Each structure stands twice: as structure tokens, then as C-alpha cells.
């Protein structure tokens, strides 16, 4: 209320000025826009020229490439041998000299079907819904004339928003700041105020400027808001070049000491746990992005080294050994509870041994011994710790087979690379921001193994790390609290679980509802996956990306097939899933080298598509043809494209229907694959009611993907067709345009 009157008053006060200001604002605004437009035009010109250049280069390269291959014809100026019988074009020049050249006939070029540009991808690509209509589709004049209502309807779908419409009142942050600055710099009639006094709180011309801007652009907010916005924007740009929320580069000179969460923030939030990429193309929605699970640690852990890593090791501190021994003893006591006596003995023995020759500083002699013990020790360790997660260990064993064989736990004195030697001793005492941040990042990984932390940090000695850790100790949760407390699964139980799963799959299949929902990893801490779990609700299995425990009842157990997993004997095949490399190992689905895989049920994830060739179809438009033959039920290709929501598909589908050309393919109840803008060659496969291929939506490592398979044996050079109407669960809502075709 008060504010309002104040505002009005000020407007009244400056009413006269305001008009001038308004003019000024308008002219400045127009000037700035003009500048921007010119700048943009220049940019476009530069970009265009660059593109031209690149195109020319590519063309030249291509030309060279062709010439080298000697297959193309060059119109040689020399007449061919049979020129005497060729038709000739003759002319007589003004001075009466006849000239003639043999006429060379050129084949008529058969026109090819229309092709709209598209980008090739081999994996699906999720895009957001479009809130504005990017362009009004052009379909020829007659259609626009006939059916003007269509465009109107289309625009209505986008709430009347068409790209580029709002240009009249367009003002963004950058332009706004520039406008204010320009107005400030402009000569002011009122000489009593210094316009440059930015630090002064709301000088009069300032208010005047914002009032004027507000008056010109009423939709941009009140003068007060504008002022606040201006200060916010300028403050940021004045303070530093980086936005405030950005942590400085940990490798850069300006690294700061920040909490672990902040150090890891970018990596944690951008990493896609499903694609193993940062800011992946597919899982763009927050819901499908499981964060790091704080509950689970992937074993095996790096135990504190048994031996001091060097002269400056923290273990050399007085009383440290005893402390470590005590800690170990504590641990062992716990493990005793777990009835692992052998291990305890082993440990004790080790401790004794260690105690016996603990004083020795010679680390050249000992490592072999230590290693040996270490390996024994860790062997037990692994089996106890990972009994509930045996598969993971298995794969880890395979991956780390080298370490496993010789030394499961690396010993401390392995070739230690360090920078400490390169600087004066007093220089590395200092804990810079980067050091501190890095320590915090590492401590969670290596826990109390200060030797390992120090080795990894390369700028600090082990002792320094230990001391720093003591200072920070208050913040760090102890190791014990992080341990996974789920009881180990028993073998028998597992077996029973297995058969139950198989039955469940059967059940699921029987009650095959037509709805397949997108998988979203569940995250409901401290609650089992029951009726309330989104996975159960959507009739999906829990996947490894879920935050539930690995022995959740709703998890798919994977298969134990030794064969090719291409019959209904394989539970994965039966459940229309591809074999999961982390669940199925017997079939070799986990092998990185594709030649070692016996499983035939991993074709989509491994991209083992057939070689396809595009040519004008025998039916309509373009078609796709098989280069080599294919067996029945063999994988042909994945149908890739943009993943769009059902709503977006409805909107796009309207346009595609009009074009009589659609590449939409229903993926599940939530999403549709649109291969119009991005896709792969299989998008050219035509529809047939007597097809040679069929489509199958499969669950591939938590994603639904469309596989195209051979319905019968297909010969080389055959055109591929599949029934657009057919889907394994009849979920195809949008039917492509049925083309008339004769039987081949």
C-alpha cells in the first residue's frame, strides 16, 4: 500500500521527465536492438562463411577421393576413337571457319523420392516437449488454402505460441543491463545527480530510468523489481566472471576449500548411472536419474595397509601401532560375531607377525610376505562381505583379476609417485583449498587408509594427511555406520527365490495387460518394495539402478543359461528383456569383447545390427534393404529416434499425419520414439501386412528399446517391411499410414 503510493508519487513527481525518459528509453532500446541485430547478422554471416568453407573443403576432399578411385568419368577433351561416327554439333564462325565437336549423350537421371534431412543416431535421444511451434509447416499452397483450420488448430496446440512471435517486446537480462547502462551513460539534464554513483542506493535518475523502462515495458515488472534485478545481475558480473554457484576448478590456481558435497556436486548430479556418461542424452528427467547411493559401498574396500608406507607414515607415530592393533581387534571382535573364526586367527597371526617385526623400517624385504597375507586375508574378506552380492564380486574378480591373483589388497610401497620431493619441505605443509577438497573427496573412498590417500593426493605426506584427518574427524562418519547391514543371503534361499521369480514372470505374462510403463528407479528408503513401490505399481522389475537392496523381491534375477538365450527357456527372453550384463554371466552377456559372447539376447545393447542399404522402395518412397541375409528371428536393427512424451507425440503426429509420413513408434505408455529428426536407417522400413520383420519392445538395462527382428529368413537385397500396427503388447497407438501394396 505504502509502496504503491510512493511509486505513484514518484511518478507524479517525475511525470515531465518521464516522457523524456520514455523517449530516451525507446530510442536507446531501438539503438541497442539495432546493434544486436547487426551483430547477429554479422555472426550469421561469419557462420555461413565458415560453413561454406567447410562444405567446400569436404567437397574438395570428396572430389579427390573420387579421382583417386578412377571410377568416375571425366569428360576428356579428346574425342573418343569412334568419333567419326558420332553425332556432331557444328558451327561456322564469322570468319568462315567451321568448328565441330562430337555430341556426347548423357543418361537421364531418374529422380529419387523426397528426402527430409535427419541426423543419424544409434541410440535413443530424449528431447523435451516443445512449448512453441517452431515453424508453421509448409505443405504446398493448395493444402494451406484448402485447410486453413489445420494451421489454426496446430497453433492452438501450442497455446498460440509460435517461435519468433514475441520479438516486439523482447528484452532479456543482457539487453536489460545494457539498456540501463546506456541510459546511465547518457547525458542527464539534471546535473545535480551523479549518474555514475552505482554504489549509492537508488539515486533519483536510477529510479527514473527504471520507471521509464517499466513504463515502456509494463510486462517486465515494477520499477522496484527492475531495480532489484539490475543490481542482482550487475553484482554477479562485477564480483567475478564465474557465477556464484560454480565451484572453482580443483586443478586451477583458484581452488577453494569446500565441503565434499560441493566438490562432488557436478560429478554427482551430471553423471548418469545408467549410461555411464555425464549429462547423457537419454535420461534427461530427474526421476530417472538415480543419485549416488550412500548406503552401498562397492567392495572390496581398501584395508589400511599393514605396513608403513614410508618414513613419514602415520604408523610411525608413537602409539599408533598399538592403536591400529586395537582397532583391528575391535573389527575382529565384530567378525567373531559373524562366526568367522578362521579369519580372525589369520588376522591375529598377521598382527602378531607384524608386531614382531614392526620396528623394522626395511620395506624392501617385507612386501612379499605382506602381500601373501594380504591375499589370504582379503580372500576371506571378500567372501564374507560379498556373500550377499556374489555376482558383483565375480565380475570384479574378472576385472581385477590381475590384482586378485597377486595381491587383492595392494601393498603400500608400490611405486609411489609424488610431488613432495620437488618442493621445499616447508612448502608442502600448507593445506591449500584444493588439497583440503581433494582430501575430503578421497576420505570417503579410502576411509582410514591414510597411506593411500596421501599417495593419491601426491602433494602431502601420509603423516600430514593423518593429522589433517584428525582435525576433520568430527565431520566424518565412522566406517562402521556405512556398512551394509543386510544379512547375507543363503544359497538355498536363493534357489527358492529363483523358482519363485520364474513363476512370477509367468504370472506377469499371463495377466498381460496392454500397458507397459516406463521404468523409473525406485527410491524409498527403509521401505521394502511393496505395493507402494513405483516399480511394482508399474509392473516393472526393480533394476540395479533402484535404491532398494540387491535382494529385493521385485528384482529380476537374470538368467543362468549356458546357451544362446534365444528361446523361451531363457527367463530373460521370456520376460522380453535383454540379458543384463550385471545379472547374467553364464551366457557371457558381461563380456566386453563381443566375440566372446554366446548370448544372442544382447543385440540391442551391443548394437549388433545388420548392414542396411537405402534405395527407392518397391512400394512407396524410400525403402531399406538388407545387405547380407538374415535368419529367422535374427536381430536386424534397433528402431532409434527421439524419445518424446505421448502429448508431444500427439502434437507432432498431427503434422506428420498431414504430411502423410510418420516415423512415430510407441515405446510404452509414457513415451514415443520419433525417428523424424533423429534416427537410424531402419526408419525407412515400410509397412506391410505381410511383413518380413517384426518389432519388439524390449527392456534393455532399464530402458525400453525397440528391436526389429526377422520374421522369416531374409535374403540379401530384400526390402524390409514390418507391420506398423503390430507390437508385442499391442501398445502401438499411432498407426502409420497404411499404404496400398501388392503382394510381392
Amino acid at each position, binding site marked *: 500500500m505504502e509502496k504503491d503510493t510512493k511509486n505513484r508519487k514518484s511518478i507524479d513527481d517525475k511525470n515531465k521527465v518521464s516522457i523524456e525518459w520514455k523517449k530516451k528509453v525507446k530510442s536507446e532500446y531501438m539503438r541497442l536492438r539495432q546493434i544486436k541485430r547487426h551483430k547477429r547478422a554479422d555472426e550469421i554471416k561469419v557462420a555461413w562463411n565458415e560453413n561454406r568453407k567447410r562444405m567446400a573443403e569436404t567437397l574438395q576432399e570428396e572430389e579427390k577421393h573420387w579421382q583417386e578411385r578412377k571410377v568416375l*568419368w571425366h569428360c576428356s577433351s579428346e574425342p573418343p576413337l569412334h568419333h567419326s561416327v558420332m553425332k556432331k554439333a557444328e558451327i561456322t564462325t564469322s570468319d568462315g571457319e567451321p568448328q565441330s565437336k562430337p555430341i556426347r549423350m*548423357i543418361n537421364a537421371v531418374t529422380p*529419387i523420392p523426397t528426402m527430409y534431412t535427419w541426423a543419424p543416431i544409434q541410440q535413443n535421444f530424449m528431447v523435451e516437449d516443445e512449448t512453441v511451434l517452431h515453424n508453421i509447416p509448409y505443405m504446398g499452397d493448395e493444402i494451406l488454402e484448402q485447410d486453413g483450420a489445420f494451421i489454426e488448430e496446430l497453433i492452438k496446440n501450442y497455446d498460440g505460441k509460435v517461435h519468433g512471435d514475441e520479438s516486439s517486446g523482447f528484452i532479456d537480462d543482457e539487453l536489460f543491463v545494457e539498456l540501463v547502462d546506456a541510459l546511465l551513460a547518457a547525458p542527464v539534464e539534471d546535473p545535480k545527480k551523479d549518474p555514475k554513483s552505482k554504489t549509492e542506493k537508488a539515486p533519483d535518475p536510477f529510479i527514473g530510468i527504471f520507471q521509464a523502462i517499466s513504463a515502456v515495458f509494463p510486462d517486465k515488472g515494477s520499477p522496484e523489481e527492475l531495480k532489484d534485478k539490475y543490481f542482482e545481475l550487475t553484482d554477479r558480473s562485477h564480483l567475478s566472471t564465474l557465477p556464484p554457484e560454480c565451484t572453482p576448478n580443483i586443478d586451477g590456481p583458484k*581452488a577453494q576449500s569446500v565441503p565434499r558435497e560441493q566438490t562432488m556436486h557436478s560429478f554427482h548430479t551430471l553423471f548418469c548411472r545408467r549410461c555411464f556418461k555425464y549429462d547423457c*542424452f537419454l535420461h534427461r528427467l530427474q526421476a530417472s536419474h538415480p543419485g549416488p547411493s550412500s548406503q552401498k559401498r562397492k567392495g572390496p574396500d581398501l584395508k589400511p595397509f599393514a605396513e608403513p608406507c614410508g618414513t613419514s607414515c602415520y604408523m610411525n607415530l608413537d602409539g599408533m601401532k598399538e592403536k591400529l592393533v586395537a582397532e583391528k581387534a575391535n573389527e575382529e571382535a565384530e567378525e567373531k560375531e559373524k562366526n568367522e573364526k578362521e579369519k580372525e586367527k589369520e588376522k591375529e597371526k598377521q598382527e602378531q607377525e607384524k608386531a614382531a617385526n614392526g620396528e623394522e623400517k626395511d620395506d624392501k624385504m617385507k612386501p612379499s610376505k605382506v602381500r601373501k597375507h594380504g591375499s589370504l586375508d582379503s580372500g576371506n574378506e571378500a567372501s564374507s562381505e560379498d556373500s550377499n552380492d556374489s555376482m558383483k564380486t565375480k565380475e570384479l574378480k574378472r*576385472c581385477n583379476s590381475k590384482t586378485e591373483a597377486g595381491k587383492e589388497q*595392494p601393498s603400500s610401497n608400490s611405486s609411489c609417485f609424488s610431488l613432495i620431493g620437488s618442493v621445499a619441505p616447508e612448502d608442502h605443509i600448507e593445506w591449500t*583449498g584444493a588439497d583440503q577438497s581433494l582430501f575430503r573427496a578421497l576420505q570417503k573412498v579410502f576411509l582410514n587408509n591414510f597411506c593411500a590417500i596421501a599417495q593419491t593426493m601426491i602433494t602431502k605426506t601420509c603423516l600430514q594427511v593423518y593429522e589433517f584427518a584428525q582435525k576433520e574427524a568430527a565431520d566424518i562418519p565412522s566406517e562402521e555406520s556405512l556398512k551394509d547391514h543386510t544379512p547375507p543371503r543363503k544359497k538355498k534361499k536363493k534357489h527358492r527365490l529363483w523358482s519363485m521369480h520364474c513363476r512370477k514372470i509367468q504370472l506377469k505374462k499371463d495377466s498381460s495387460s496392454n500397458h507397459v510403463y516406463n521404468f523409473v528407479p525406485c527410491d524409498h528408503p527403509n521401505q521394502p518394495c511393496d505395493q507402494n513401490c513405483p516399480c511394482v505399481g508399474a509392473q516393472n522389475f526393480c533394476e540395479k539402478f533402484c535404491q532398494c537392496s540387491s535382494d529385493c523381491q521385485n528384482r529380476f534375477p537374470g538368467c543362468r543359461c549356458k546357451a544362446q538365450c534365444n528361446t523361451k527357456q531363457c527367463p530373460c527372453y521370456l520376460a522380453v528383456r535383454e540379458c543384463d550384463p550385471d545379472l547374467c554371466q553364464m551366457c557371457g552377456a558381461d563380456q566386453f569383447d563381443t566375440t566372446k559372447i554366446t548370448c544372442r539376447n544382447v543385440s540391442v545393447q551391443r548394437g549388433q545390427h545388420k548392414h542396411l542399404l537405402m534405395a527407392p522402395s518397391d512400394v512407396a518412397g524410400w525403402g531399406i534393404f538388407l545387405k547380407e541375409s538374415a535368419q529367422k528371428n535374427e536381430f536386424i536393427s534397433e528402431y532409434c529416434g527421439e524419445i518424446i512424451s505421448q502429448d508431444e507425440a500427439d502434437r507432432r503426429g498431427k503434422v506428420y499425419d498431414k504430411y502423410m509420413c510418420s516415423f512415430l513408434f510407441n515405446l510404452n505408455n509414457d513415451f514415443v520414439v520419433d525417428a523424424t529428426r533423429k534416427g537410424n536407417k531402419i526408419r525407412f522400413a515400410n509397412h506391410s501386412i505381410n511383413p518380413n520383420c517384426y518389432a519388439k519392445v524390449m527392456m534393455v538395462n532399464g530402458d525400453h528399446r525397440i528391436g526389429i527382428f526377422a520374421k522369416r529368413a531374409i535374403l540379401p537385397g530384400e526390402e524390409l517391411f514390418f507391420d506398423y500396427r503390430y507390437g508385442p503388447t499391442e501398445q502401438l497407438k499411432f498407426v502409420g499410414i497404411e499404404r496400398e501394396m501388392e503382394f510381392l
Partner: protein
Amino acid sequence: MPPKKRDKDSDSAAKSVQMDQMNHELFLQAFEKPTQIYRFLKTRSQLSPIFLPRTLSYMRTRMSRTHKARKEFKVNGILAQVVARKKKEAAPMADFMTITFLGVYDKKLEPARCFRTPDQQDENNAASAPAAPELIKLETILHKVCHKKRKDVTSPGLQVVLGESQVPLNPSEEHPPPQAPTVSIPTESFTRASSNMVKSFNLMLKAFDMPQPNNDTENAEPAAKRRRRDDSNVYTAELLLFDKNNHCNLVAGDYELSLKKLEAPVRIPKGRVNTWDKAMEVPVELNKGSGQLELFRTGPVIKFRLNWASEPSSGMVERPRMLEASPSESTTDKENSTPSADGQNNVVAKKKEAQKMHIVYQFLYNNNSRQQTEACDDLHCPWCSLHCGNLYALLKHLKLNHPRFCFTYVPLPDVARIDICINECFDGSYAGNAIDMIAQPPGLAFSRDGPVRRTCITNVLVCRPKRPTPSMAEFLEPDDPDFENQRSYTTGHNRLYHHTTTCLPIFPKEMDEDSEGENDPPWLQKKTMMMIDEFTDVNEGEKELMKMWNLHVMKHGYVGDCQIPLAVEMFIEAKGDEVLAKNLYRNFVVHMSSLFDFGLISAVGVYTSLQKLHELANRQECKMELASCWKAQRDHWHACQKPPVLSPNPPTTTAAPEKN
């Protein structure tokens, strides 16, 4: 009336004549265009031939050599072949060339002439012959033709008389004389070293005192008398032994040489001697080839047998039997497939003569109402004038090469009729490879830039699909619809493919490259980098590392958690140096601990992979780089603020001095 009638008749006759003329013109028009086209093609293919007709399977008759050798041909045998040939070449050089004269034949002399009185018998002649033939003194001379010197008009020669022998004139075939004179020439005399500048060696035979065939007055006069009286009656024959390349063209066998009067010494090769070289040397003679043959038939001929022997034989040997001269033998020489018509068609002509082939071409037009017949006596194509060899080849050629016409073969007694009519179905469409259609200008298939790869196409000519046993099951769920699917009869890549991005045609040689072979097309690589660059709250070090990691993962396509340790290992291998060079060590450590947080790699895995990176970093330049960065950090830290955590650690002082 009658005149009227006649008038009408004449009118109708005139009309019919007119009609006939019109019809004829139409007929000519109809046949004119295709004929012109085919004539053009003929000329073109004569000037720049596209292929050799003899390579066509139905034109076997045009192929003069057999491919028998090809069947046994082995690449590894080439050396053995060459060695054998060399040996064979070397063989005659080591021996003697023995020439056994069989006799001089002159058909113009009546047979009685050969039976001379016994008193004329030479001691060389066999006594057993009932009537010994007249003997003729024959001188064998080795003629060495030397290199022409600059001023010489003719090539200087050197003549070495090798021997003289008495050769019977017209010995009877039934009762040949038991013995024949021989001359042995040691091969050493052919060596070039003996006489410098020798270009070639010729064997020259001089027959003295040939009886004059048309001597009407002195028909019965003994030859001896004439010999004395007429010195000019000397006939010679010459035979090239070694040409200028030192190749011997003579193999063992029977030879006939025609004898000519001395004033015109001519070498007339016949039989095996008819080599390509000679044909080139004496083109004029070849032109009057028929005359040459005539000469053989009528003129005097000397026959002798040439042998390569290891020891010399002199004087008289037992007369060998004449070898049968078979026509095939005459063509055994590889080189005699000369393009000259008469040489090649010897065999064919004989066959033709046996069959007496007559071909009648009957041009039909306008529902067979118009006909025009043309008879032809040989097997040349009327448009291409290609000699087809036999009727089958001719018809095949016509059908395949002249599709603008329809050909029907009507066998008639001792004549073959070929009905020709315009092919109404001909539309000029191309039935060949689809690739040829886009070649500009037309004719890629015939381009001579070297071999061009083609796509494989299979045309199914006969197809008898397995019929399913009739059962009600086929009306149930179509489990196996294979039977219902009719396959097209042409399989394979019988079409032109296009590149998906550019729509340019794919040439067969490019077909093996799959444009979808890679997981990370360049645009996607760029896209992921741009997407990461867009973040405002991610610092440049993080961005750089994320980009590197993303590109790595995109390239290799890791599919499971279990592959992440491997992915890290490969990343360090591939990009470890880059990480260190770009000063991203700490970012990489943070990245690794992030992977650990996600449960994708164990602590041990983190430790071991970082150790691997350390191994890479142990080089001096890397160390320097890292140290300088670290120093910059420390300097900045000092400059910026007093460290909040002051470490007054006394133990470090004890530890630090011990360091290094």
C-alpha cells in the same frame, strides 16, 4: 465396258502399285532406324571395340586356341614351364641339324618323266626301285645374312656350301626309293661369334638342271644334257633357320619348299614355316596368297625332312616315310591365328563347303503382308558383318545383340530361313546393372579405367518351391509363413542404393562400409561437448574431464556396471596422458571417487587405477607440469588469504627433513 473394265483394272493395278510403293516405303522406314542404329554400333565397336566376340561362350568357333592348358595351369608351375622351354630351346643348339631330302616334285612333269632309264642312276640311288627317278643335283648352302652397312644397298651375305646331294625327282609315293640323301649341319655354324655382324641364317637349296616342264621340243632329252647346255636352269629355295632374334623357327618335321628360278629367289613358307614374322616380312606375297598356293600346287617343290640329331649323318640314310599332313597340324603353331581371313578360315571354309550353308533372311512387316527376302551364303551378321562361324552362333548373336528385331529360325531343306520382324516390345529399357544407369555419360560398364566391382545378383530361372502337405493346419495360426511368401525371381542387389545422409548413389565398391558402423557420429560427439559447455555452474576443469570421459564411453559403448573398471583402465590407457597434460589430475581423482560413490568401482579399483595413472605421470615433463600447477595453487592460496587451518604440526618437522 471392256475398256472400262480394263481401266478399272489398270486403275486398281496402279492403285496397288501405289499401295505397294507406300507399303514398301513404310517397310523401309520401319527397318531403317534400327538398321542405322546397328550400323552405327558396328562402326563404333570396330573403331573402339568393347569386347572381343571370341570371349562369348556361343562364339567358340572364333576362338582359335584351346584352353586346355588352363585347366592344368598352376601358378607354381610357371618356373618349371619356363625352364622346360629354355631347355628345349637350348637343345637344338647342341646338336646337328639333319636334312633328309625326300625329293623334288614337279607336277607339271608327267609321271613318266620320273622314271628314267636305269643308266641314269646315280650310285646314291637305291637299286631296288623298279624305275629309279631322275636325280637332281642339289646344293645346300648356308646363307648368312649380315647387318647392312650404311652404304650397302642390299644386305651383305656370306654363303657357305655345306654339301651337294643327288635328290630324286618326282619319286613315286608307292615305291619310294629306299634311301635318301642327307646333309648334316653342325649347329656351331649358326653361332654368332663365328662371323660377326650376322643377322640371320638362311638355308638355301639350289637345284641344278631342273627339267623344263613345258619344253615341247626337248621333252625327252636327258637332263644331264640340258644341264650342260643350260646353266640358267637353276632353282633355289630359301628357308630361314635363325632370324635376327636368334630364334629358330624350325621344329623337326617334313617341309616343303617351292623352288623358284634363281633370278627371283623367293622364300615361300608353307606349313609350319608360316610364321607371323614372315607374314609381316612379305606382305606383298601374302596379298597374292592364292597365287602362292597355286604355286605350291603347280610349281616345283622340294620336300625334305628336318631333324635335330645328336650326331651327324652323311651320305645316304633310309628314306623315311612321309608324314601325314593333317589340317589340324597346320594350325598347331600358336602364332598362326592371324587376322588375315584366308589363313584362319581354312578349316571353317572346308566345313562350310561340306554343308553348303545358305541362309535366307526374310524381312516381315505389317502382319507378314510385306516380305522381302535376301539370300546370303555365309555366316556373317547382316548388321555387324561379324563372322559367327556357325548357324547357332549367328542366331544367338542376332537374338542377343539386335533386340530391336525378332528373329525366328525356320529350318528348310538345304537352306536356313531366318524371319526378321520389328520387335514391338522393345522399349530401350536397360536390363543390366543398375549402377550403369547413373554413370555419366552412359557406358560405365564399358569404361576402361580398370576393373570395377559389381554387385552380385542372382536370377532364379527355375524355382520349384517345396509344397507343403495339405493339412488343416495351414488354416490355423500361420506359424511359419514361409510357404506363402513368394520370392521375387531376382535376388541380390539388383538396384541402386543411396547414401542415407547425402542421397548420393552408393557404388558397389563402397557397399561394404556401413554408415551406421560407429556409435559416435561426429555430430553427436560435438553435441555432447556443447551440452556440457552449456552449464554455467560447472567449472572448466570438470567440463574438460567430463567431455573426455563421455567421448570415451560413447566410443566404446560400455553396457554394464561390471565393465566400468575396464572402462577406467582403458580410459587411462587411451587418455591418461591427456588428463595429465591438461592438468586434470585432481578432477580425475574426484571423478573416480564419484564413480565409487555410485558403486561402480571399488576402493581397490580406484586405488589401482590411480596407481596406473601415476606410472604415466612418472615422466619428467608430467611431473614438472603438475608441480607448476601445484605451485600456482599454493601461491594463490598464500596471496588470497591466510589459511583457515593453520597447522602448527611439530611432527611434520621431524618427518619432512627425512624426505629425500
